[in-house]
């Protein structure tokens, strides 16, 4: 179909003015991809899909959402009222809002899988270091966008979550208090905070879209890694992206949409994981909810924060746990990429994934002494994983790597 389209006169007219044919050839029909990518490589295109859905639904929600903490009848606020108006009165507002709320979680599911794949198969290693670093920037901006967005319904979790997180900045020496007020626009989270968070929540996804463009560009320069983790040269085990991977990605999209739509239509709160129960209670600055935990996708880092007695140390550790991701390509000095040929790294990275899940579980649950200890052990391993990597080649005996796919 694409070939037919490219033979039309309209296409020729466009091509003359944009070089469209060369772009399509270099990026799609003649862009070479290893033929042995497994389904874990589908999560990149899925992330792009979810980002598009989030921006689209977000634009339409913004037509009705009102970022104001002014009180209305019954202890609600203008912001909460406007969300309920979207859910009740706006045509298909319920659908668009649930798509957006579930999409936030779906985004993290997909991106975490994408990251896990990159770690397992060594996709972050040379020559893809910068590709990985851009990816980490995307993760950070995503977390920011999610955090800003979570304040907008102005429920109890919105309010107290924002209070806790902005408070963290206050723990930093010298600049702390200044930063905290800069974020809040007041002495506590309030109307000015809500307004700026809405503004930033609209800005960040647009930033994301631009950086994702850079991520894809960087990928197309260095080309995809593959499960064997070996360099592949054109003509030896590669196939063009189109039609093979466009079809495979389309199939992945359909499978993803099955899960996504199931949640959107039948279980949008996901038992309080995607939209928390307490967020249906309007924000009240005089009463904390019985149990505060961030949304599931931020809980691993929340556990790292809680694992330290000193607030400052906790904040620094949480920052370090994210910052260390930038260093991963330089900490790992092994010549071999894929875990398939690195027995020790394979054990370590699987344990790392389990650790992150354990951290997430601890962060979600009410703190008990046992869970705190578990959280501290998990935190220790989280950092140990990275810090052991430089020494790994000294005692890891890698298996023989095949020279072609």
């Amino acid at each position, binding site marked *: 179909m694409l070939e037919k389209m490219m033979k039309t006169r309209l296409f020729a007219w466009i091509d003359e003015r944009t070089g469209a044919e060369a772009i399509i050839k270099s990026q799609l029909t003649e862009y070479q991809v290893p033929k042995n990518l497994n389904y874990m490589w589908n999560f990149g295109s899925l992330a792009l899909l979810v980002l598009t859905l989030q921006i689209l639904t977000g634009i339409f929600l913004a037509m009705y959402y009102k970022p104001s903490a002014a009180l209305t009848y019954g202890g609600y606020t203008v912001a909460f009222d406007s969300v309920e108006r979207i859910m009740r009165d706006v045509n298909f507002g319920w659908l668009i809002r649930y798509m957006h709320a579930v999409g936030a979680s779906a985004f993290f599911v997909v991106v975490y899988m994408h990251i896990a794949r990159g770690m397992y198969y060594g996709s972050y290693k040379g020559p893809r270091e910068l590709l990985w670093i851009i990816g980490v920037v995307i993760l950070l901006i995503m977390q920011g966008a999610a955090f800003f967005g979570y304040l907008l319904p102005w429920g109890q979790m919105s309010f107290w979550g924002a209070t806790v997180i902005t408070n963290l900045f206050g723990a930093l020496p010298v600049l702390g208090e200044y930063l905290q007020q800069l974020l809040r626009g007041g002495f506590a989270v309030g109307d000015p905070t809500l307004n700026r968070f809405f503004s930033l929540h609209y800005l960040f996804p647009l930033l994301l879209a631009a950086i994702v463009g850079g991520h894809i560009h960087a990928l197309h320069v260095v080309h995809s890694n593959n499960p064997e983790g070996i360099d592949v040269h054109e003509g030896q085990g590669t196939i063009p992206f189109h039609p093979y991977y466009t*079809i495979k990605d389309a*199939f992945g999209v359909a499978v993803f949409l099955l899960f996504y739509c199931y949640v959107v239509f039948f279980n949008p709160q996901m038992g309080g994981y995607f939209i928390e*129960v307490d967020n249906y209670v309007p924000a009240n600055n005089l009463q904390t909810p019985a149990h505060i935990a961030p949304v599931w996708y931020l809980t691993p880092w929340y556990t790292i924060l809680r694992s330290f007695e000193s607030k400052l140390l906790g904040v620094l550790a949480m920052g370090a746990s994210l910052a260390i991701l930038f260093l991963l390509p330089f900490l790992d000095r092994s010549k071999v990429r894929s875990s398939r040929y690195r027995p020790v790294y394979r054990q370590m990275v699987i344990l790392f994934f389990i650790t992150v899940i354990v951290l997430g579980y601890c962060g979600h649950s009410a703190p008990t002494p046992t869970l705190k200890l578990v959280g501290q052990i998990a935190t220790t391993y989280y950092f140990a994983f990275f810090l052991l990597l430089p020494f790994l080649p000294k005692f890891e005996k890698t298996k023989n790597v095949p020279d072609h796919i």
Partner: protein
Amino acid sequence: MKLKNILMAVVAMTSLMVASGAVQANEHGVALKHAEIDVTDQEQLRRGLTVFTDVCMGCHSAKYITYKGLMDYPELSLSREAVDELRGEHPLTAGLITDLSPEDAKVSYGKVPPDLSVIANARRGGPDYIYSVLTGFEHDPAGKVPDGNFNEYFPGNRIAMPDPLGWLDHDEADTAELEAQAQDVAAFLAFIADPHQNERRIIGCWVLGFLVVLTLVLYLLKKSVWSDVKH
């Protein structure tokens, strides 16, 4: 191979999440009673509305549900006459708002009764919780909390709401009737918390059906196209 492991892990995690979601309903330590509700049952929803307007609305509001909504939502579809009788002097576009002022409520009960529009989503256990609390008034075994303020299912057991259905010391013969009232109002509150939920589930069935076929077609297409690639 790897893929299978990963898929297994995803399935395991999902089921864990769903399971812990189910367990969460019992967070207060006491297992909630299960409310027999059906948010598509017009009879039950209308009975629940009656309990709501006759009992709950003495103190509570549901401001996001308007009198007009009672006519417009197909699940309720009250007649104009019935709505006119309910609303009295209130305009059609007004929410179901109690006549009790927040100031008076504070004097009488020590706190302002919460708005009930989204209460079924705002409490763990939703309708089960509502049903359990309404039929959970007991005499305090320790004898500290006065009668009418001790509730087995309310977190901390001390509730400001005085036994609205008269559950405490009710006649054995009335048990079924009171339980039915509590379930009906739980159904009504579950409905108004998300009034498009039935529509949502119906559309969802069509969407999922369509997607299953689409997935199948794309799977066959993918297999067909990839049959060119030699491994």
